[in-house]
């Protein structure tokens, strides 16, 4: 069970933030992930245009 971002791939567009139904992501200098709010639903991984997010259930 893990949410992981590959910062080398991430382009900081915030696409993942816009689709998160739980407000568990934020865009600052990097993507900030709140594991207390995250349900590992994987929607952010599907939306990401550059395959920078990996969600393992």
């Amino acid at each position, binding site marked *: 069970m893990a949410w992981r971002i590959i910062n080398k791939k991430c*382009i900081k567009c915030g696409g993942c*933030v816009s689709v998160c139904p739980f407000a568990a992501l934020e865009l600052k200098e990097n993507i900030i992930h709140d594991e207390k709010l995250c349900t590992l639903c994987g929607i952010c991984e599907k939306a990401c*245009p550059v395959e920078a997010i990996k969600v393992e259930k």
Partner: protein
Amino acid sequence: MIDVIIIGAGPAGTACGKMLAENGFSVKIFDRRAEIGSPKRCGEGLSESTQELIGKIPERCIAQKIKGARVYAPNGKYLDAVLDLGGFVLERKVFDKWLAEQAIKAGAEIQSNTFISSLIKDDGYFTGVKGEFMGDEFEEKAKMIVCATGAESPLRKQALGIFSQLNLIDSCLQYEMSGIEIDSEFIHLYLGNKLAPRGYVWIFPKGKERANVGVGIVPGEKKPKFYLDEFIKLHPELNKGSIIEVNAGCVPVGGLVKDMVTNGFLVCGEAAHHVNPIHGGGIKEAIGSGQLAADVIKDCLKKNDVSKKTLSKFNDLWWEMRGKRLRNVEKLREVVEKLSDEDLNDLADALKPEDLIEFSRGSKLSVLAKALMRKPKLIMLAKNLI
């Protein structure tokens, strides 16, 4: 305490801030980015008619003047949808700063590189923000908060429960390319289920040798990079060029929001999904919605009443002026995404170029319905347009 805090100095936030400042209200606009307008998350196309809202756009903001859109069916046949007044491909980094300066001249204050971490709520009303500027935390209070963050902020979810559904965004990747060869009189839009499932590939020229080349697709197995690279590989006029900038993002193509206000809080622009659902264009929508927001907020502030009930005039006016039309465009998008490549090819023969412009505005959808109904298997689908 100031009158209004606006979060986001894009087209919606600066339009709203400018108009409020012109009406004598104290306005502070915060933007997350170190440089306003950068990085762009946009193809940079804009219709000439946007100048009705913001006045004449200075030449330095414009990379290319265009006549309209050349729309390609999967078989390569194209229609030239010429806009009456034409349009522009902008330099967003210059354009957005110009918009910001207009707001500043009107009396608004703007602070970039400022991260808003949370909203402050007192007695059921949003009354301020907590943020960070250059590593220092701060609090700022206001009578009213406007959320013009674009879609990529959790604040709209925290205040109003708004987020973009996965099936209602297009996942996009764009290269700004140089050293290519392109017909710069038109923006070029390529449709096709193999090329770009649900979305399209675009080439927005910035001169004859430079362009934004991008793709937007419904999120699926393959990512936008696959489709964009495939397209470029097949086009020699593009694959000899270089990539001078990479942009990505998710654009809302639907999910229009019924309720965009609560006590002391209003959401406008892309954050409220004020984007054209068929082509994903959002600059003009954002400016219009920011101005409308300002118009409603100034009346509310004059009455010293920023309750949800009073602010809800924004819902009523926006839905009357824009929502109904954009809902029609969303219906159009829902129909077009179900068409096969063969259907799209046939439409290119059946339709006139000027029809495409009307459709993108949510008008004359019955013309499309009629064209689709020539095929018995599409009759049910076409009925959704009437």
